[in-house]
């Protein structure tokens, strides 16, 4: 527990440092934030176009899908803020042989790595997501109870746990492969499954997205919580698998460290 608190403190200091640095180049920060916002808004705009030009897809009307897209932007914003710099950091670390330096620090190396991903540019996406969610809740005339907020927060929390597991696995892959090429793109493509409502997928894929690869936890569950369509059993299974995947990824990490040979020189 003390280690986690120490790592959280480390993340706080790293973030503070990066914010100070970003404020030195305010114009670049503003442009970077705008670019991040533009990129993350493509998905919602496309879904809006699909919904306005067709009847959409089962289980969702236009207002509900806008809420879904708001949640998606909110989650993408959180992901970028927490882990936005991580892939670049890890790649540099392994390719330059700097991981050796982290291995002799008092805190666990993987903890230090995960605490280094802060990227301020995600703030625009997070804010846009919050505004869209607020608008949709108003437009749908939803009553948001304390319970719904709790379930929403719980889903976001387990979504972060799942991201952590994926980021640890990504780090393991970089340790093994060193030169990862476009592994980043592959990870992004796979996580794309979590960015659509479960109802569009086949029954088998739906089960997979709830159990083995519980990507539904990122956007589907928080959106369902706000829409009062929460399924306790389904969510419990997904949360459990998220924790299990985190455990598996940490075991992988230990295994990879044993195989690690410094690439620096």
């Amino acid at each position, binding site marked *: 527990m003390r280690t986690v608190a120490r790592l959280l403190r480390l993340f706080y200091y790293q973030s503070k440092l990066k914010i100070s640095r970003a404020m030195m180049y305010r114009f670049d920060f503003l*442009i970077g934030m705008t670019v991040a916002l533009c990129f993350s808004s493509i998905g919602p705009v496309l879904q809006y176009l699909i919904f306005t030009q067709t009847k959409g897809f089962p289980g969702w009307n236009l207002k509900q899908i806008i809420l879904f897209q708001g949640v998606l932007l909110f989650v993408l914003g959180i992901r970028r803020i927490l882990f936005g710099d991580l892939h670049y950091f890890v790649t540099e670390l392994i390719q330059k042989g700097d991981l050796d330096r982290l291995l002799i620090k008092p805190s666990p190396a993987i903890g230090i790595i995960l605490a280094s991903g802060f990227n301020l540019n995600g703030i625009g996406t997070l804010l846009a997501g919050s505004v869209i969610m607020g608008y949709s809740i108003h437009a749908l005339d939803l009553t948001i109870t304390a319970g719904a907020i709790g379930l929403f927060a719980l889903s976001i929390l387990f979504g972060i746990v799942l991201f952590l597991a994926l980021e640890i696995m990504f780090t393991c892959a970089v340790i093994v492969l060193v030169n990862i090429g476009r592994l980043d793109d592959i990870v992004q493509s796979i996580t794309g*499954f979590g960015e659509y409502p479960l109802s569009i997928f086949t029954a088998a894929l739906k089960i997979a997205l709830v159990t083995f690869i519980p990507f539904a936890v990122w956007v589907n569950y928080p959106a369902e919580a706000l829409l009062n369509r929460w399924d306790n059993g389904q969510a419990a299974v997904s949360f459990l698998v998220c924790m299990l995947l985190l455990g598996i990824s940490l075991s992988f990490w230990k295994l990879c460290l044993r195989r690690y040979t410094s690439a620096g020189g």
Partner: protein
Amino acid sequence: MNKFAAYIQISFKQSFQYKWTFAMTLATQPILLFINMALFRSIYDYNGVDTLKGYSFEQMIWYFTSYMLVLSFVWNNTANQIARKIITGDLSMDLLRPVSLFQNLMARSIASRLIAIMMDFIPGLILYSIIIPPEFLTVQSLLTFAVVVIPAFLLNYLFNYLLGITAILIQNNASLLSVVNLLAAFTGGAFIPLEFFPSSVNRIFDFLPFKYIIYWPIQFLLNKQPDTDWMVGKVLLVQLGWIAGLYVVYRIVWRKLLSKFGDAGG
């Protein structure tokens, strides 16, 4: 011309060392293809239609896949390469070479596209055809695609070259490049068929070059044009018009901007 051909040959050899990087799309695209298949199967079934905005289910899935195939022909990194040369001062060395920077970078782009066609387009066409057979595809549609995608490459190259030299004026143009590239992809139909946009928006897109780089080559590959000969002529004419226009702009702007370029290296 011999010098230009030699540049292409050398660039080809250099880029071929990293040939598997070109093939990475083959790993990511099938995943996106499956997501699109799930998404559009659900939309077609829910709407109870066989065609949507004039696209059959197969054509719709292939629309998104075709974008990747078009990129095998038209993509280039010229804007970033020029910007880096300007910022680092490497441009000075390039100006001393027997081949102009314009030709030098074009040779590199052609070489990289030749590898992309070998490593990405051809295997991709086979792999995606196994996943979802393109019944609409004919030899004629493939040939027509080839005819319009070559000027599309030139057009994209010129546009990127002009975008890259903005670094002489604003130094760090990385964010500008990101925004413009995103807008180009959006207005060119890279993310969704342009038929999904309101017609008024499409009229605006007509005045931009990007749909002649992405949308039209895809249309011919999907065999979506009933009156093909007439449309090919029209598209080619507009593409050539844009190429000529941008080339004139390049000739004027390049001379003026070059006079502003100062290398601080020693």
